[in-house]
């Protein structure tokens, strides 16, 4: 069994780490700090990396670094656990062709994702941009698989409602 190096195993995933941190922090400067902190921490705990999936391991650390930073700044992490039915079925009347119109409006899609509460936004990023399975997302975020599924469902409902052509004011009537 040969020893794998930090460069070979972890450094290739810095792009994913930065992209994820950027979505969490929603600005580049904080994302850089978070990834630096995460990389130091990843190096420290590299000898204990057992899993073959270094990318999900690194993103877990990025997420922890972000939470540590947010907690340190005394911000509260917006939780969506209890506003359950708020946007239930908000997307019912919106069809695929109405969404297709948004194709040219990258900014609008970006803003919609940024507007999502933290715990919705991260599952969307991990699923759609990183392509992780529910099981992997559950491990990174530290919640049951069922919670990943329901957060994804509600995040998508909310995004579709946000992206309906007339919804720029957030008015869903």
């Amino acid at each position, binding site marked *: 069994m040969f020893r794998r190096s930090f460069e070979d195993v972890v450094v290739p995933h810095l792009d994913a780490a930065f992209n994820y941190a950027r979505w969490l922090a929603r600005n580049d400067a904080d994302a850089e700090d978070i990834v630096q902190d995460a990389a130091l921490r990843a190096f420290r705990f590299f000898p204990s990396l057992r899993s073959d999936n270094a990318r999900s391991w690194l993103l877990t650390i990025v997420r922890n670094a972000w939470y540590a930073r947010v907690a340190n700044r005394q911000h509260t992490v917006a939780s969506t656990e209890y506003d359950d039915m708020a946007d239930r079925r908000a997307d019912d009347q919106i069809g*695929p062709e109405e969404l297709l119109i948004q194709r040219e409006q990258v900014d609008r899609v970006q803003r919609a994702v940024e507007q999502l509460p933290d715990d919705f936004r991260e599952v969307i990023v991990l699923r759609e941009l990183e392509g992780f399975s529910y099981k992997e997302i559950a491990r990174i975020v530290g919640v049951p698989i069922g919670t990943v599924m329901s957060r994804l469902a509600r995040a998508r409902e909310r995004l*579709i409602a946000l992206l309906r052509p007339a919804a720029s004011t957030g008015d869903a009537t």
Partner: protein
Amino acid sequence: MRCDETTRLIDAYIDGELSASDASAVGGHVDACVHCLRRIQAREVLGELIRALPYVAAPEHLRTTIVDRRRPIRSLTHWASAAMVVVAAAGGAGGRAWWQTHIASMVAEQVMTRHVHALATQHLVDVRSSDQHTVKPWFQGKLDFAPPIADLADAGFPLIGGRIDTIAGRPVAAVVYERRLHVITAFVSAADEDVPAEYERTVRGFHEKHWVQQGICFWIVSDLNAQELTDFVELLRARAM
């Protein structure tokens, strides 16, 4: 399958997370239900829109910083010195005191966990002796530094023995002393001489004190009261070297 059941499974369906039988049930329903089909299509379009967002790569200077910064750390072979370099490096960048505390408390947490684990499993020592000249040679060949061991029996802190333990994946010497019924563990590792660091905390009734002395890094943990533990630390600092 009805619409409401399909709605519940729609996300897992498009993400390929359903069992074959569930997926085929959803597929069967969708073939016959335009409403649910449109919901699925809307989600698929949404996925395309999100995946079309720019995937921003790590800036080159960030990559360079990370690869460069960890180089000095890599050359150190001991967990404690690596931790202290991390603290020192983080301290150099303004506004990151939270990270220092974060790292130190992370090590402190492991120190406490190992102390409690040893007590709980009654595996305190691998070499049991009150004689430092028995305990110290036992570590020979097991570590690449010689852990200082002090005779503090005259001050009421008799030596129990020692064992090899692991903190953050690296081997350390755990030297065990006692005070009445209280066990004191001194985790000892090699440290970089010019890394100054002290740290202490009290959590859940355990006091922890850390310092670096002549290239050796100490982490002391016990449920002994703060005053007596301070006495112990002063004696150890004076006599261990």
